[in-house]
């Protein structure tokens, strides 16, 4: 008997209502303009939870906000310079309807922010989070989580994971918080039987066959590792790149940031960290205008090497999660799939 459970779809909202009493609830909501975005739920009865469409954003901003005050400072006199903490953030949060790509992205961010150093802001939010995954029965048009090997279904990393079986969800837990939820609210869950488990496996097989894109990521990663990517690929893509930074901002695993002082009065200010993109020329430009990166020829290089070469070398897996959002958003045609295709098609 496996540790899998079943939650009837009818009981989803009542369960969320219970969980909302002690947690902030974040789920994919469709707004009145038809856009689906991970949003914090105010009133459960007033929102449209959308588990059909891909949310345009990922969970990144909830753990690593686009702008975040690290501390405030004041300097009332030349010999007086003090730093003050910012009030601690909100309480426990439950993230619901998180597809495999976005959940894997959180696991990647855990490595970035918690492995070698412990980023206090990220840690506080992460310790207070519960991740409830949603397996993808039907990948979206630009998805390739199969190529990045973190989907469409996950085996671990989640607190709870749901698989849509039509009138019910199959529910699994991996981490202790997931198990706690199941036992605390056991009236909502019944044990899964063979039929349920088989249905999940069936859904998995079908999902795997539904990808529209064929992305040869492993081949591209190998070419990068072997230094077999011709200069022309970097030049062409760097030239096409319109320098909007959209890919880095929308990407669930882009975590580069910049830090600046924002003056708020003569003697006071805030030190703010905000999202940044390695494709911007100012990312590497030093005082005196010296820049080790020639933006025109190689502006896009660090982005793809980081995700498909350096992180592979360091952690044995690429840091792209195959969500396809950059493919959706890039209007220069320099997304990661385009890079992989160009790299793989070069005959070396």
């Amino acid at each position, binding site marked *: 008997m496996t540790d899998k459970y079943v939650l009837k779809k009818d009981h989803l909202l009542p369960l969320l209502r219970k969980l909302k009493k002690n947690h902030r609830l974040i789920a994919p909501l469709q707004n009145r303009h038809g856009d689906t975005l991970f949003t914090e739920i105010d009133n459960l009865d007033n929102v449209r939870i959308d588990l059909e469409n891909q949310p345009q954003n990922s969970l990144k901003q909830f753990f690593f906000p686009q702008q975040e005050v690290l501390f405030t400072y004041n300097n009332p006199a030349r010999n007086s310079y003090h730093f003050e903490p910012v009030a601690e953030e909100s309480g426990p949060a439950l993230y619901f309807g998180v597809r495999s790509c976005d959940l894997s992205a959180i696991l990647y961010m855990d490595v970035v922010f918690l492995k070698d150093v412990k980023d206090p802001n990220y840690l506080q939010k992460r310790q207070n989070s519960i991740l409830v995954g949603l397996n993808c029965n039907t990948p979206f048009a630009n998805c390739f989580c199969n190529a990045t090997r973190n989907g469409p279904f996950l085996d671990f990393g989640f607190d709870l994971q749901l698989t849509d079986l039509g009138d019910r969800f199959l529910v699994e837990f991996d981490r202790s918080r997931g198990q706690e939820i199941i036992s605390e609210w056991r009236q909502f869950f019944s044990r899964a039987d063979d039929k349920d488990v088989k249905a999940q496996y069936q859904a998995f097989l079908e999902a795997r066959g539904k990808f529209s894109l064929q992305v040869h990521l492993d081949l591209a990663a190998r070419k990068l590792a072997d230094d077999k990517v011709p200069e022309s690929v970097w030049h062409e893509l760097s030239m096409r790149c319109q320098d909007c930074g959209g890919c880095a901002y929308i990407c669930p695993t882009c975590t580069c940031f910049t830090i600046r002082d924002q003056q708020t009065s003569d003697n006071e200010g805030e030190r703010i960290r*905000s999202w940044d993109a390695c494709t911007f020329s100012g990312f590497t430009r030093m005082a005196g205008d010296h820049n080790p990166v020639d933006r025109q020829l190689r502006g896009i290089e660090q982005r793809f090497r980081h995700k498909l070469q350096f992180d592979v070398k360091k952690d044995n897996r690429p840091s792209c999660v195959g969500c396809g959002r950059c493919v959706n958003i890039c209007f220069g045609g320099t997304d990661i799939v385009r890079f992989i295709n160009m790299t793989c098609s070069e005959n070396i």
Partner: protein
Amino acid sequence: MAGLATTFGSGAMTNSINEIENAQVILVSGSNTSEAHPQVARRIFTAMDRGARLIVIDPRRTLMARRADIHLDLRPGTDIPLLNAMMRIILDENLADDLFIEMRTENFYDLRDMLFRIDLDEMARITGVDLARIRSAAQLYGRAQKAVICYCLGITQHVCGTGNVQSIANLAMMTGNVEKEDTGVDPLRGQNNVQGACDMGALPNVFPSYQQVDNDDYREKFERAWNVALPAQPGLTLMQMTHGGKDGPLRAMFIMGENPMLSDPVIDKVKETLDNLEFLVVSDIFLTETAQRAHLVLPAASFAEKTGTFTNSERRVQMVRRVIPPLEQSRTDADIIMDLSGRLGYAMDYENPAEIMEEISLLAPIYGGMHHDRLENSWGLQWPCWDRSHAGTPFLHKYYFTRGKGRFIPTVHEPPAELPDDDYPFMLITGRIYHQYHTGTMSRKSALLSREAGEALLQLHPDDGRRLGVRGGDQVRMRSRRGEVLVKAQLTDTVKAGEVYTTFHFSEMPVNLLTTSAKDHFSQCPEYKICAVHLEKV
């Protein structure tokens, strides 16, 4: 706009932006599209991915030029000879669309006669582009089934700007590349709502919807609607207002969201004019260089604090919605105008912008079917949209031009007002860059944008740098007959030797101190693109 009005009858983009993706040949003239209109550049790149060919007319080697199949790097201000040469070649090689010319146009013979009289070698000499390349471009454009022309301020900001546009229209009509889907002539507007402003009659000679002021019927319509007597003659142009000098025609000015102290040519003249007004009121969201000289500053609301519509290059009217209430003491433009009008004795009591839009739909035929409830939750509507049931117009001049038949207007070369000479041997071209917008009022407040491009740079060719002893990063004194500035040099082969390029985004480098007051006779658009300067290392 004036140019297209005389040839097609309507001054706006003829087709929609997304149709550009389907063109087979795209001719981009005087537009640094990837930096100024990235969403249009996106369509151009997509078209190229599908096999489309790109011709770029630009004195500079911009990114568009580098990606182009053919780059015609002409001498600034020689667009008319270049376009005439292309048209002549098209005629010579029998690439004209005779049927289209016959059925849909008039005055072709005048153009043809003029073209047959020109000397192609002479045109090549004037433009500085070798004839073989002009010929390739003409053949490429002429042979295309579906071709689009995109142009921007590099075409219009000349003394012959109107003539330039007319030449472009001539070229498109001659080859039947207008009035069909996926073809057309696309003027790319310099600001996000300048199309909307023009549509609403923020021009001296027309009421909303381009209904002329001196047309009795139109004027009577508006006088009835607004219950006042209206002037029967066109008003002053921008330059007449800001360049009047100390004895200018105005005693007072109300400037809304415009910064002529930085964006108008011959800044000294602007300063003299404004400082001699009895009363200057400026409404803006930040204290701009112009606002600093005002007697009264009215804090206005930004895009996020007001509801209304913007109309873009492709005539698309889209909602912009308030998401936060106006901050502190700021008020929306509508509030400011209504309050002011009331105090001046003419009460206006629109409850909200939707009600204002209702009046617009009543009085401006091309906006006849534009209502907020239709624009909500949609991607907007393209004018003309005659009534509530009309779905908008993706491309203009379908089946007939707005003026009936398209009119060919032969144009001849008119050299720029001020060319380089021994005293001022360099040609200065002014324009924009990607990361900053206009006079930087908003964009310079962004830490990220200012990191990417935080100071004015003068693009200078390395050969010129060597000759002047100027290295990248050095300060240069640049001076014209009207003024001088200090600016940091950036050595690059984007510009040709003898030509330099910089922007007007940075208030500490007010390049418009140097530009001329010369302008196009019809459109009154100043010749920002050309003046003569002297350079020396500081």
